[in-house]
């Protein structure tokens, strides 16, 4: 393996890490915002569609989550312009499953039982296999 290949590998890893970290923070912030608001169907039936949209848009956690999701989106665009889709999309998607499960347990206090851990890991393995 020459120096260029090694450098290229680190660059790909850094781009994928940027997508995974920003996507995980964004997902957790948005999930936390939606959990705090409650069922959107109930809000819509009480306050109408505009009321439901306003309730979401006025949540500071949602806004912060969208900022991190935007960071993740632009990191994805940047990565796609340098690396192959068959590497970036499955690698970032599969790693995000695991980091989200860890973050959901500690920050959202979700009951991530054995069933969900196994599902997250199996999906992660499945996505990795599909990239081969």
């Amino acid at each position, binding site marked *: 393996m020459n120096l260029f290949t090694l450098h290229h590998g680190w660059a790909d890893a850094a781009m994928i890490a940027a997508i995974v970290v920003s996507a995980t923070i964004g*997902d*957790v912030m*948005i*999930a936390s915002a*939606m*959990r*705090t*608001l*409650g*069922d*959107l*169907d109930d*809000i819509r039936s*009480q*306050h*109408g569609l505009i*009321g439901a949209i*306003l*309730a*979401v848009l006025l949540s500071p956690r949602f806004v912060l989550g969208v900022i991190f999701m935007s960071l993740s989106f*632009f990191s*994805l*665009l*940047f990565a*796609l*312009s*340098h690396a192959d*889709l068959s590497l970036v*999309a*499955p690698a970032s*998607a599969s790693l*995000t*499953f695991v980091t*989200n*499960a860890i973050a*959901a*347990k500690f920050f*959202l*206090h*979700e*009951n*991530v*039982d054995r*069933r*969900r851990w*196994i*599902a*997250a890991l*199996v*999906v992660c*393995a*499945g*996505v*990795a*296999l*599909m*990239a*081969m």
Partner: protein
Amino acid sequence: MTRSTMTFRRWLVLGVVAVTAPLGDTLLSIGMTRVGPVSLHHLSELIYAIGTPQILLGIALLICFFSSYLASLSWADLTFVLPASSIGNVIVALLACFWKHEHISPMRWLGILLITAAVGFVARGPSYTEIPHTHKPLELEPEAEPR
């Protein structure tokens, strides 16, 4: 405490989450391939890339994905929604196989099998963790009485 909050309509919303995300990503990839590599010194090119038709269509699909994703997170856990909607990867692979007649290797079929099994596995479990004191009552101005 976990419980199931899923109905047929909610499974449909998860289906929209599953299909629109990978299709949107694929369109973004096609668009970015046409735009070409973006240099770190010219990041503003990413803004101009948004004007590409494939990227615009990709963004439209990702908006559909995002609104259904938000709705699903309001009645289900993140660790339920993500594996359950991962069936989208399988849908895209099957479309590539039967519509575009792309070759799918045995490893990919194994990946498809694993994802399908994981989706079936998580879907049989509870979808929502009940955490006391997480819901803040929504305070919006009451609608004006019609005159």
